């Protein structure tokens, strides 16, 4: 029953098995499955795996040893380009995010508390986080009131994204254009808010 297998066939079989398996394959698993009808020593498998590692050393994929066995994985340097294969689209920004961004753009620098005062609702940390992560806003200082809240302003990246040379290129609000062509409205906080 036990059959012989030559070195080339052994290499092909182990190579194909590791590629076809969903999980990493250990030497014991190779022995128990694809190699079960052959008489192959663990040492010979070791030699074959080292040969495979060498064969793939300069290729787009490499043979890696993990805790549970051997598997092929892509070269780390290629990860950024491979990411293009599965782009993850995030959901559109909520109204709260857009209003917060608009307020920071038109009324900067201002604190989160001031944004909340104008919007009339609390501004969640995740809203500020998503705008900070996007690189559209940054903290440019701290307001010297209790708690020293951060003062938010828009960034150069924000201007680049919207194709603006400066904030004065932001469109003026139609309903206020009759007041003045070049001036933009600002909501000033009442004394209690300062």
């Amino acid at each position, binding site marked *: 029953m036990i059959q012989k297998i030559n070195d080339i066939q052994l290499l092909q079989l182990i190579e*194909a098995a590791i*590629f*076809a398996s969903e999980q990493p394959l250990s030497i014991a698993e190779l022995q128990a499955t694809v190699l079960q009808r052959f008489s192959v020593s663990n040492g010979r498998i070791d030699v074959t795996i080292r040969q495979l590692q060498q064969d793939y050393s300069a290729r787009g994929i490499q043979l890696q040893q993990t805790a549970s066995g051997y598997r*092929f*994985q*892509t*070269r*780390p340097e*290629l*990860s950024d380009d*491979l*990411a293009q294969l*599965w*782009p*993850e*689209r*995030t*959901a*559109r*920004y909520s*109204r709260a995010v*857009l*209003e917060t*961004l*608009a*307020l920071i*753009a*038109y*009324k*900067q*620098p201002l604190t989160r508390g001031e944004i909340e005062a*104008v*919007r*009339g609702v609390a501004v969640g940390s995740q809203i500020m986080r998503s705008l900070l992560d*996007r690189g559209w806003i940054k903290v*440019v*200082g*701290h307001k*010297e009131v*209790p708690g020293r809240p951060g*003062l938010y*302003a*828009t960034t150069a990246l924000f201007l680049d994204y*919207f*194709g603006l040379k400066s*904030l*004065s290129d*932001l469109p003026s609000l*139609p*309903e206020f254009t009759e*007041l003045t062509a070049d*001036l*933009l*409205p*600002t*909501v*000033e906080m*009442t004394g*209690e808010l*300062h």
Partner: protein
Amino acid sequence: MSKSLANLTVQQLLPLAFVRGEAVHKRPDDLYIPPDALEVMLDAFEGPLDFLLYLIRKHKFDIVDLPVNDITLQYMEYIELMQGLNFELAAEYLVMAAMLAEIKSRLLLPRHSQAEDDEDDPRAELIRRLQEYEVYKQAATELDSLPRDERDYFGARARLADNFNPLVILPDVQLTELVLALQSIMRRAKDFQHHHIKREHLSTRERMSRILALLQQHHGYLAFADCFELTEGREGVVVSFLAILELTKEKLVEIIQVEVCGQIHVKVARDNR
């Protein structure tokens, strides 16, 4: 493996089902099939056409000459046998029996006139169906013998490197969306009694941010003169000056002059409340 695949696959054939495939042709040419084998056999057929094809092939009848008499007799014989076994006959088998009987009866009728020569042979439709079925039965066998994924070969995949990070495509925002967002705030803000609308140069707000950022770079302390970019000209200097005044008014910065006519400094405001 998906659930649907499980539906598609069949159990290993039972040993009794040797009637399928070559085993069938090796059987003696006599008609007799043991009743217990018949039940298994019927299971192995894909319907009355398949069964009829089997009978024709088994007895080496030429399908083109289709001896309806012999076939009908044999077909009926099996049907009776099946009924004797309380075998639940599929309607299709009975329809086929009826069709064979009908063809037979039409063939037995004497032919009267020349006009009837043009009439289709009642066997023609059955022959056409049998031949068409046999073509696709053969096609199915050939399809099955094509090298196939998960049987004759397996997909070879590699994992992504550990440093792989998915590419996140962030939502697009149009400038008009920002304006609409602000308009909606303004409409709501009008309802707040303690707010009042004030006009202001937007460039001043931008300059305020810039001066604060500049102060941050210089640890919160900057010479007054360094807050100005002289290359911007008179207008730029005015905007910077207004911005510093506005920052002072909003108590975000302080302007310090230690001695008369001394250097003026701008400093980030500390505990001035």
